[in-house]
């Protein structure tokens, strides 16, 4: 049993302490926007914010997440308005299959908080999510668009 704070709500989840945060979010809390892609913290499809920092939730246990503020893709919009990264994604028609995009968007939102006007080099360094459809060109354009929004 663990108390997790997800998208501003405290939720009691009945899982073992070593359960990856990803699976607690998806299966116990029922928020399926956070995706499973590799389970070894490489692809980034499961990226969430933990105390504002982009983290790969498959590589973090529930016990490590207790007491921290967790934000998932479902909690990124506020007061009914999409986050500026989501807006830029819509305006630039970024997703193809879309499966990796929750993680991509969460990674970008965290980057913009740290570096509001990232250079291409900043993007190259910070955004290491895998996209098999190959949306990188639109991702880069949308990051710059969101930064200047």
């Amino acid at each position: 049993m663990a108390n997790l704070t997800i998208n501003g709500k405290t939720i009691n989840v009945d899982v073992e302490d070593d359960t990856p945060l990803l699976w607690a979010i998806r299966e116990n809390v029922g928020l399926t926007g956070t995706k499973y892609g590799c389970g070894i913290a490489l692809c980034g499809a499961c990226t969430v914010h933990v105390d504002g920092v982009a983290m790969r939730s498959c590589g973090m246990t529930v016990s490590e997440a207790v007491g921290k503020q967790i934000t998932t893709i479902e909690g990124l919009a506020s007061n009914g308005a999409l986050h500026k990264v989501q807006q830029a994604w819509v305006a630039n028609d970024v997703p193809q299959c879309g499966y990796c995009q929750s993680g991509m968007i969460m990674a970008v939102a965290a980057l913009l908080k740290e570096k509001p006007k990232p250079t291409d080099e900043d993007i190259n360094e910070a955004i290491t999510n895998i996209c098999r459809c190959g949306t990188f060109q639109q991702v880069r354009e949308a990051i710059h668009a969101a930064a200047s929004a």
Partner: protein
Amino acid sequence: MNQHVMPKLNRRAFVIGTAAAGAGLAIGLDIPFGGPTVVRAADGSPEVNVWVVIRPDNTTVIRIARSEMGQGTLTGLAQLVAEELECDWSKVITEYPTPGQSVARKRAWGDFSTGGSRGIRSSQEYVRKGGATARVMLIQAAANDWKVPASECTATNSVITHTPSGKTTTYGKVVEAAAKLEPPADVKLKDPKDWKIAGKGLKRLDTVDKTTGAMIYGADVKLPGMLNAAIKDCPVFGGKLKSFDEAKITGMKGVKKVVKVGDSAVAVVADTWWHAKTALDALPIVWDEGENAKVSSESIAKWLAEGLDNSQPAYIGNQNGDAKATIASAAKKVEAVYNYPYQNHVTMEPMNATALYTPDKCEVWCGTQNGEAAFAATMEAAGLPAEKCEVHKLILGGGFGRRGMTDYVRQAVLIAKQMPGTPVKLLWSREEDMAQGKFHPVTQCKLTGAFDADNNLTALHVRLSGQSILYTVRPAALVNGMDTAAFQGLSPSGDAAIGYSVPNLLVEHSMRNPHVPPGFWRGVNVNQNAIYMECFMDELAHSVGQDPVEFRRKLMSKHPKHLAVLNAVAEKIGWGKPAPQGVYRGIAQVMGYGSYVAGAAEISVTEGSKIKVHRIVASTDPGYIVNPAQVERQIAGSFVYGLSALFYGGCTVKDGKMEQTNFDTYNSMRIAEMPKVECVMVPSGGFWGGVGEPTIGVAAPAVLNAYFAATGKRIRSVPLKDQNITFA
């Protein structure tokens, strides 16, 4: 706001879905006195025809039979229907008819299969006719109401106008009457030059939910009382499950059941997938690996190399003149041997399907590239007739050919069948996904070119040796044993025709089928055939001191469409003009899936082995372009997929199994490694080519040829990681 209508997977929808009799049709029949039958959508709105449902508020529901996996076909097909229908695009939504509905209505929506870059090119005519037919009926209904000739009425933006009087009405107001009319026997389709909705780079219809986490993929399906399954199939292909020690895991948290799946797999069913996977990892399993356990990449390579010898039997795919004799007596000849490895699709969403079985009904929820094939697999695994089965298609988290296969659907049904009444979601781990792929086939190729004394190419012999996809996947498609698809890009004619005329040409295939199951992998055989041909063209040109583009042009005079895209790329990349300091260029062209494509790359190489790709230019002539923004995205995406395979890919066999297990051993390109792709679209009209796949063919050879230009070293083996070549 446009949105794609997804099946609602809450309890209410679930109850309705399973309570609906027959094929689970959310469609009712309304038979008025004496008139024709009106078919109604779930909300009561009438169908004008199978493609078009119009609601009273003018919302236009366009039915899409093909599957959306990121390639944008959902939007493109809707554009084609809407173009002819003359409806208000801002009020268009789409929905998938189900395979069960299709069966019940005598395949009213035609083929569901979404592969081979066929989504639009093989259905454009009948979906456009669907839109045009509906428009004619809607106008006729308004004309009848007004008691005027239909020829005096026009429609645009879902509004019908009687031109002489200026009277107007809307589709939503006349749809009830229109749905009762006989459809016209024939309709005239618009000339694409008059398109207003098609041909434009309109925004995709499925984007918003993909940015909020709301889009439901197969892996996200939730049903009341649902359990979760993790599976392991025998890692040696063709092997069997001998035994497993269930007692070791029955006490583990959440575990409900351990089941045998077919004769080669075992699954753990638990309350959550994490519990199922954890227990499966702890389950002692004994496999009967069989003879295939002796196979390795080395033994496969040796067997394929033997097939390069002319003494071995081979199928002839393209031939003119006498290449062998010309080569034997040539003044000068050039020979090279290339190879291309197995590749895994690695869709971001691992394979999964959810099944609910009772003796009276079997329903499946999954992402599939072929709803009808998934339906057939459901029927077969369930042992139930068509009217007792249904497949609910979900948006795919990547397809690339992998989800045209139905192995995961069959497994899900076989598991659910052992737990009647309980929905079970089967999700593969990434490791299972890597182990149980349907792999891009392995091949080798020996190429020999002959020159006369004036350095004219007089003969070309392309001898392929390796695996056929059709032999395993679609044996009925073999022609007297020959896999014609093995010659993609090298065929004498058709939608994957060679772009060169050589006086003496021989292209042949020594078919050798290892035990590894092959599948259609984005671009399929164009991938390796374009590397073989286009890198060898580069070799031939250099061997006689000629410019690679000029050398090609001399062989392409009878192939103007191939030549046009090559020229377009050469011009855009600046071929013939100096490149920036330290930057080198490579170029390639091929035809596949009915489209002519070319690509060029600018790269720099440091320390002889670190490649930075600075620029990519790609051109395509697919005949017509339905959505240029999506075509651009498909082209750029195909380069990411193709270059990932070139640099990082390659699946190897040891002890009969695949060695790669996850992205740590089968890496994929990141944003830092990928430059912008500059697209030059040159649609010449008069034919319909595909878009999702063709350009992948030129990605690797363009970079490999640039690598030669930069280093003087010829790379004839993929992946580059095996030669310690990587991204800078």
